[in-house]
């Protein structure tokens, strides 16, 4: 019998993360990836015209007091993670991508010592969803990849749909 050998070491630096929950599961996201946490006021319903992958986008958000010329597309995190629908209570506006994420609740901010690579046995969509796994108080928590919620290309498509509708063109 022998021990497993692996070259896939966790990144050993302290990371500030925000813990949040969706459908009774706790996730982490890099604190630097979140621009603002807010309630659900000010959301405008939005339904993408095509592409099943974009059906997770449910609303748009314009922050009149901060960057009124920017539209953020609001992703239902339960739909993104293929979970049963949940009851969102908070919105995380992301930094660096014009997306915001509906989550059930924000737990707290904490530090994690390492982001462990996802084990190789995992071979599905989770490789896109997660940067890796963290251990917080003995619990294994996925660290989400903020860029997986919406790609720049998807934001471009959504912006085009939004502008077409504003101009009265069926999109």
């Amino acid at each position, binding site marked *: *019998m*022998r*021990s*497993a*050998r*692996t*070259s*896939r070491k966790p990144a050993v630096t302290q990371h500030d993360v925000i813990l949040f929950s969706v459908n009774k*599961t706790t*996730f982490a996201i890099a604190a630097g990836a979140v621009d603002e946490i807010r309630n659900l006021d000010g959301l405008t319903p939005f339904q993408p015209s095509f592409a099943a992958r974009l059906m997770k986008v449910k609303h748009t958000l314009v922050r009149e007091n901060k960057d009124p010329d920017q539209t953020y597309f609001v992703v239902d995190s339960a739909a993104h*993670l*293929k*979970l049963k629908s949940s009851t969102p209570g908070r919105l995380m506006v992301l930094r660096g991508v014009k997306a915001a994420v509906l989550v059930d609740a924000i737990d707290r901010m904490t530090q994690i010592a390492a982001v*462990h690579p996802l*084990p*190789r*046995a*995992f*071979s*599905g*969509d*989770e490789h896109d*969803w997660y940067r890796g*796994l963290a*251990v917080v108080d*003995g*619990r*294994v*928590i*996925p660290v989400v990849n903020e860029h997986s919620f919406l790609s720049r290309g998807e934001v471009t498509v959504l912006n085009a749909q939004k502008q077409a509708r504003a101009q009265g063109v069926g999109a």
Partner: protein
Amino acid sequence: MSARTQRFVLFPLGKKRFALPAAEVSELSRPDELQTFPHTTHLLAGVLMRRGKIVPVLDVAQIVIGPNAPQRRFYLIANRRFERDVEWTAIPVTGECELTSAEVIAPTGKLPNYVTGLLSLDDEIVEVIDLNRLAATEAA
């Protein structure tokens, strides 16, 4: 022990036993808390924390026995190879495991491709399983 004799770990799943080469097995673990999070990989039930490592749990019983497999009580910790890496994988089993030496017989008949050989023991034929092929079977 003849040159063709190899060592295997026999593990029970319900009324049947299956085998893994002993070199691929690290240890038998008592029940640990299974932790789950969303993913889309077939057969993976979640992860365990074991000796400071995050260990994926591969529930092979769904394939080799079917959906009505009895409750699994222990975890067999196996070394699963991924190209150059070797990674621990926990396999839920229903009882105690046994180390044995036996000659491998080439599989015959219409056995699934994850069965790489057969062991003829006193009163049973035990299938030798290839974990990677078994995982791929479900994904296909």
